[in-house]
């Protein structure tokens, strides 16, 4: 059989299996993040279909189709993985399992973990049995992440961890944490960091949710008070955790860089014109807002082209390695601009904060939430610095 014929056969197989196994409810678009399935030790399923869908996919290793079968994955080739995603998209199948284990820890373990760690952690992730959170930022280590101070001491038969993390998404719901700790306080800041895994149930771990200006959030502060961690739970070499972190951050930035689209790829002016009404000549009735919307649409449609180019170049291996910084910068600034315009168009309706009419302040809360876009995952300033240094080659940048 030729490659193409094999792939066609695979496509048929996938299509048939999905047709038979993806429950109809799991083919509806998610309405919000509560529709997502996160797995974990005490998983919360919104309905039976969600549970079934995750279990069936996990059963074939298709929650992580491109991971090796030995680690609970599907063992698919890149071409097969692409076909699977296409077929899922074709029927609108939901992602069966949202997971930082899959999107963040997994790739790091595959690259830096030892065999025992891979065997121990990856299958649990693939099956959605353990929910992970990420412990990177600290109150005094934001943009300058490498200045983190969480102390990890070698106590012979265990590590002793003391310190505080912040912006730990879903720390209050996670089972385990992968986190950056300082194992050497003498070394230059990038050289004394290790990448550590531990159970959130370990004595001394506590979390506190962070209330944002937009309201409740998945973020937490996480405190470590004499937390004892087994010695074999460091990924990669001691004091070389920064390499692991950089690898993951690059991953994360690529994911975030597409967010300027925010799923809304059409004309914002077109979407808002009926909210505002038209003047006698049929134009959007607020002439200056119309001007802003027109310019925004130019920017947004141009950025859509840029995103398309970026993805195409990524696939072809042609993108400059620092291009994700530019996408992240431009995309997040654009998204902030979009929500400023949505607020301006919404006027006093959009100011409502609690009413059902406003869906409990949806517009305002989303607007406020976008302000974090240019902070999280590396601030706009950090991205601009990376562009200046790595693309424009400016001195001392």
């Amino acid at each position, binding site marked *: 059989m030729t490659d193409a014929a094999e792939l066609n056969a695979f496509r048929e197989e996938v299509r048939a299996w999905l047709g038979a196994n993806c429950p109809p409810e799991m083919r509806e678009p998610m309405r919000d993040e509560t529709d997502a399935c996160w797995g974990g030790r005490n998983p919360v399923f919104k309905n039976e279909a969600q549970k079934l869908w995750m279990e069936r996919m996990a059963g074939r290793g298709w929650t992580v189709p491109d991971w090796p079968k030995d680690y609970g994955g599907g063992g698919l080739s890149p071409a097969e993985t692409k076909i699977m995603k296409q077929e899922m998209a074709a029927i609108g199948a939901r992602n069966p399992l949202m997971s930082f284990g899959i999107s963040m820890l997994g790739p790091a373990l595959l690259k830096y973990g030892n065999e025992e760690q891979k065997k121990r952690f990856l299958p649990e992730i693939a099956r959605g049995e353990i929910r992970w959170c990420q412990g990177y*930022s600290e*109150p*005094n280590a*934001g*943009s*300058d992440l490498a*200045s983190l101070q969480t102390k990890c001491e070698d106590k012979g038969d265990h590590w002793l961890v003391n310190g505080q993390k*912040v*912006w730990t998404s879903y720390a209050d719901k996670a089972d385990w944490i992968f986190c950056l700790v300082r194992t050497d306080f003498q070394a230059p800041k990038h050289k004394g960091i290790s990448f550590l895994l531990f159970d959130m149930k370990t004595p001394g771990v506590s979390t506190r949710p*962070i*209330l*944002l*200006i*937009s309201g409740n959030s998945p973020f937490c502060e996480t405190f470590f008070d004499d937390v004892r961690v087994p010695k074999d739970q460091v990924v990669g070499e001691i004091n070389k955790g920064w390499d692991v972190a950089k690898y993951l951050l690059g991953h994360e930035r690529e994911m975030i860089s597409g967010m300027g689209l925010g799923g809304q790829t059409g004309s914002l002016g077109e979407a808002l014109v009926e*909210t*505002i009404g038209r003047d006698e000549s049929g134009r959007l009735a*607020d*002439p*200056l*807002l119309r001007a*802003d919307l027109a310019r925004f649409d130019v920017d947004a449609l141009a950025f859509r082209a840029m995103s398309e180019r970026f993805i195409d170049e990524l696939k072809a291996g042609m993108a400059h390695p620092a291009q994700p910084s530019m996408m992240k910068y431009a995309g997040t600034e654009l998204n902030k601009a979009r929500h400023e315009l949505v*607020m*301006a168009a*919404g*006027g*006093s*309706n*959009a*100011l*409502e*904060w*609690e*009413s059902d009419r406003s869906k409990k*302040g949806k517009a*305002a809360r989303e*607007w*406020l939430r976008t*302000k*974090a876009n*240019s*902070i*999280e995952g590396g*601030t*706009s*300033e950090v991205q*601009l610095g990376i562009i200046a240094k790595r693309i424009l080659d400016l001195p001392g940048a």
Partner: protein
Amino acid sequence: MPLYLNEDQSMLRDTARDFMAAEGAIGTQLRHWRDTGCKDGFGHALWKQLAELGFTGILIDEADGGLGLGHVEAGIVLEEIGRNLTPSPFLISAVAAVEALKGTKHRERWFPGILAGDVVAALAVDEGPKHRPEAIAMKAERAGNGFRLSGRKQFVVQGASADLILVAAQTEEGLTLFAIEKDAKGLEIEGVRLTDSSIGARMDFRDVEVDADAVIGEIGQGKAILDRVLNAGRAGAASELVGVGSASMAMTVDYLKQRKQFGRLIGEFQALQHRAAHLYSELEIARAAALKAQQLLDEGSAEAEAMVSVAKAKAGRASQLAVQEGVQMHGGIGMTDEYDIGLYMKRDRALNELFGDDNYHADKLARMKGY
């Protein structure tokens, strides 16, 4: 008149600054009323204190028991209110409503209460999500000795706590302003909590009948009065915005001097320095514009209206820049509810919207200038 505060005005500013920083502070007022879910969104005790200081009478003639001062002085107080995000009926009750009732018979009924800090007034103008006073549709039809009002209003600031509601409606003779009491029959009021924790109201007038007495000024001559009232409110809002922006900048500049990243104070980073310096420049210009508008209003100048729009638009944009830069420069901490900078962003948004946003006023200026 030189374009800076004279000695009396500087003293007033100092008084207002000290008072508001002490009694009107975010922790004491805004957060308190917000976190206790207060249905008014402001404190009546503070309103009384403002009255005791004489502030509520700034625009009321001395003959009527007020201080007989002007919009410049009202702006001074509002800038300090803005700085502290102090929730207060000052702008609507002591500025807009006083401007509306000034020289009318209604002042006898209402000024004593405002002077005492007992009465809260509201201004019901907007009927849709945007400020469009040129297109007021609400009807006031003749009915017996008076009028029957029907229609809806929204974004009526402090409308849910108001004793007196000033309503703009169309009569056969044209736009007319009415003074209506809160318990008017057929008037349904829904208090709505807004993003900045203030309470706006939606009002449904279902055949609300009022006496002819309720008319402010002449029937059908409401446009000129409403313009005057709105311009007073806009100039005041401009000053409040300047206060919001200035405090937001001050807080941010302080943070730049404290926060270290990459082994340096972030205030040492030139890119942030230049942005902060630009912001300073914008806020200074906005402050000058607001003061100029208020001086022109106080002089009764024909140029006042254009300058009011300049001031509201400029202050709106400058303050918006201040809160945006503020949140961004604070980084993650600026996103938390615990920290105050986000409260400035919320207040800025609401104040920008009030009495017309910068788009509205830039457009209005263009129309006034004949293009």
